[in-house]
């Protein structure tokens, strides 16, 4: 199983918390960018069948219809598996009937909508602008056009936020009935407006309380908590993201995109001028067997199901228990084994770094 990630760095507005590779949308750059992207894909793609494709950003949906069609045509270079999961990230305000039809035509079958919140105070702090009504309307539109797999992103943990605010947000998200929900505790990264404005983080205790509340409310509505921050209805887990967490290979195309091919983890240049000049290379790191195994642990234990011990042995020719001191952690119930999977005790998932650093 192999995946492709394509990065579109353009945005109409810049969110105050975002530390991804992004820049203001400027039509004068877009075609040059897409041409260079096409060239990169032609150069590097080795022709194998892809299981998932994910176009993220930035805001891919901010492209004009023509630009979007050009982008989607590029994706036809890839040989797709029969049930290929094809996701495009969308901003609610960009969604139009025309764009959705275009996506549908080119095989996109999953939408990831960055809603983040409906709370006015939070939206202002985030530098975002939409309403619950518009969300209802746009999602209904997508459904009517045949999109049956929709993800909604949610951010929590602003210093102004109360538990009541959080519950209200969750309630509204649930009303939209998405197949998949990703929730993130706000990270105050350097080089973001929030960081520059010295916005305070919330206390870990409050953060944890919010997290537990989210898990509780979503489980009640039959969402499976399958990864630290991800919830899905049955059979709607993100196969693209699972590919990351299963430590498998993927291509990363586009400005600042990361990939993992032939034991090399790479990140493309973050410099647009260089990228347009087809100088794609940024950082590259060849992984040792130990690196690979450490990543397997760091990523695999994020899943509530955990790591398949049989697969681990096949992959590395060694039992996991020979490579990592899991016995004492099993003894004090930080780790568990069930049905051939090693996983973190669910009530320790939110402190899993403490467990990982005892292992790797």
């Amino acid at each position, binding site marked *: 199983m192999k995946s492709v*990630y394509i990065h579109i760095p353009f945005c109409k507005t810049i969110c105050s918390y975002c530390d*991804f590779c992004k820049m203001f949308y400027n039509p004068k750059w877009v075609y040059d960018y897409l041409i260079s992207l096409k060239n990169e894909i032609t150069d590097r793609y080795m022709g194998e069948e892809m299981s998932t494709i994910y176009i993220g950003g930035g805001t891919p949906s901010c492209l004009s219809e023509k630009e979007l069609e050009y982008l989607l045509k590029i994706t036809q270079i890839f040989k797709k598996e029969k049930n290929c999961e094809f996701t495009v990230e969308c901003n609610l305000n960009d969604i139009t009937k025309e764009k959705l039809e275009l996506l549908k035509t080119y095989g996109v079958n999953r939408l990831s909508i960055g809603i983040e919140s409906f709370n006015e105070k939070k939206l202002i702090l985030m530098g975002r602008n939409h309403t619950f009504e518009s969300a209802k309307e746009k999602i209904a539109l997508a459904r009517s056009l045949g999109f049956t797999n929709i993800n909604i992103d949610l951010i929590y943990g602003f210093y102004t936020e109360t538990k009541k605010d959080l519950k209200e947000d969750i309630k509204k998200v649930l009303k939209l009935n998405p197949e998949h929900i*990703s929730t*993130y*505790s706000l*990270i105050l990264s350097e080089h973001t407006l929030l960081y520059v404005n010295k916005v305070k983080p919330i206390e*870990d*205790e409050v*953060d*944890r309380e919010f*997290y537990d509340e989210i898990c509780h409310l979503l489980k009640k509505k039959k969402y499976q908590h399958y990864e*630290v*921050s991800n919830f899905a209805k049955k059979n709607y887990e993100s196969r693209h*993201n699972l590919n*990351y*967490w299963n430590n498998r290979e*993927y291509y*990363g195309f586009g400005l*600042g*995109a*990361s*990939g*993992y091919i032939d034991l090399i*983890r790479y*990140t493309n240049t973050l410099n647009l001028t260089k990228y347009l000049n087809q100088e794609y290379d940024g*950082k590259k*790191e060849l992984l040792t067997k130990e690196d690979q195994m*450490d*990543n397997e642990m*760091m*990523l695999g234990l*994020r899943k509530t199901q955990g790591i398949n011990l049989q697969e681990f042995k096949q992959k590395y020719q060694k039992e996991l228990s020979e490579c990592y001191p899991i016995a004492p952690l099993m003894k*004090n119930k*930080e780790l568990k084994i069930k049905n051939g999977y090693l996983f973190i005790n669910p009530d*320790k*998932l*939110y*402190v*899993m*770094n*403490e467990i*990982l*650093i005892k292992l*790797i």
Partner: protein
Amino acid sequence: MIPQQNIRNFSIIAHIDHGKSTLADRILENTHAISKREMKEQILDSMDLERERGITIKLNAVSLKYTYEKKEYQLNLIDTPGHVDFSYEVSRSLAACEGAVLVVDASQGIEAQTLANLYLAMEQDLTIIPVINKIDLPNANIPKVKEELKRVLGFQEEEILLCSGKTGEGVKELIEKIITKINPPKIENEKPLRALIFDSYFDPYKGVVALIKVSEGNIKVGDSIRFMSNNADFIVTELGVHTPKEEKKEALRCGEVGYLCASIKEISNIHVGDTITHTKESATTPIHGYKQMKPMVYSGIFPIESNKYEALKEAFMKLKLNDAALFFEPETSEALGFGFRVGFLGLLHMDIIMSRLEREFNLEVIATSPSVVYEITLTNGEIIQIDSPTKMPPAVKIKEMKEPYIYTNIIVPKEYTGPIMELCQNKRGIYKSLEYIDETRVNIHYELPLSEIVYDFFDKLKSTTKGYASFDYEMIGYRESKLVKLDILLNGEVVDALSTIVHKDFAYARGRAITTKLKDLIPKQLFQIPIQACVGSKVIARENISALKKNVLAKCYGGDISRKRKLLEKQKEGKKKMKNIGSVEVPSDVFLAVLSE
């Protein structure tokens, strides 16, 4: 050859920062021992640490030549440290001298260690030359300092020299005064050899090098010698002096100061303060007047990584070469594993050893709360001494307990008299007297338990007087005290390394202070951790460290993986500085940090 009666052995003594080392440098320059070009600032302070702290730790003996009234003189300058903890080193070098230059800062006047050092010199019957130094300073107050020297120390106006180590003014006069005023060493050429070891160091090529003063007889290369304390015999392979460059000699005559090598590989064969004699025709008694100092403060020192035990042992053995007062023996702690019980002269001494372990030997260590030596009379009449709380017998077996007391010199501007008295009272001090140094400064005398000084007295003294206090003390013996052992329990288990002995009346306050401190210093972990302070089985203070609620890479996708792993590795690196005590991870600096309030 310079006649023996033209030898002058002298030291320079002073309070810290009164310019002793700079003055020594200037003397070296004036005697052409080193050229201006070679002149590194304060050449005698050879260790980095010494320069950084502005104090001299290790002794150095330099042999200088000077022509006065057409006669050539050999001046042996023996450098001394200037801090209270190192008065034993001062006494060592003073035992090798006939005179001492007492340096007082023209802007500061007499300070606590001026007095302490002077008393040590007077004990050795040395001729004292009082010098007011730093007279070039804009805030120098020569008349006032002169008055202090006359009034407090009883010097005559005409004895006092004025000097500037910085400009060199008065240095020539000082050198000549050393020649005219200080007696030559007693010349006893015919007597059997007696030479005093006043310092030693380890040279990777020569082995152990001893710095000696020949008091009687003389010594040559090839002589068979004996250390009188343990009757170990060696053949002298090399003799010489430092000028300050090394200069080999065939012999050292009576009265001279120099270094000696004798293929001594075992550091345990040499004891500073020991007397060297010849194997044949040996002296019958060792030199008197030498003061062997005992450690006053003991602490457990443990390697953070337990496989560094041997390296730590090696380091202590090497440090001991240059540091006769350092004492160590193996100790095992349930909490910290294998390490050493180490005896120090005081807290500064301890601090310096800790920094040297880290800097010169690259060892990361944990130190437990320093303890003084207690004297306990058991119910069966037996008297024992303990240097560690873990060695304290159960309360029912103790009939009486005694602790060491000190007598203080605390010199402060008089407006701080009130705060100082309050501080001393709070430390169980007994007021003795107060005297005026001049109209602005007083010398306050208290009797205080040494254990209270070890706790946080220095920090308090500094903060209450904005750094204006100078402090020195002498031991005055043992006194009975109501003392109890205060245990600290982490997650229900006694942490032996955190136990302390405290006065009964202070146990509650100390227990609360330590538990609060631990709560702040120990990071949250996966489970709740109770911290208790107990005397016997009685819990007197309690805190809780609540369980860690969040430590997760909240989102982690394709682009983040390398970066996220680096984050984890950084967290892991932080854990290496932690020690596992039972199931609790404790940062290594906690053990000392609980001391300061």
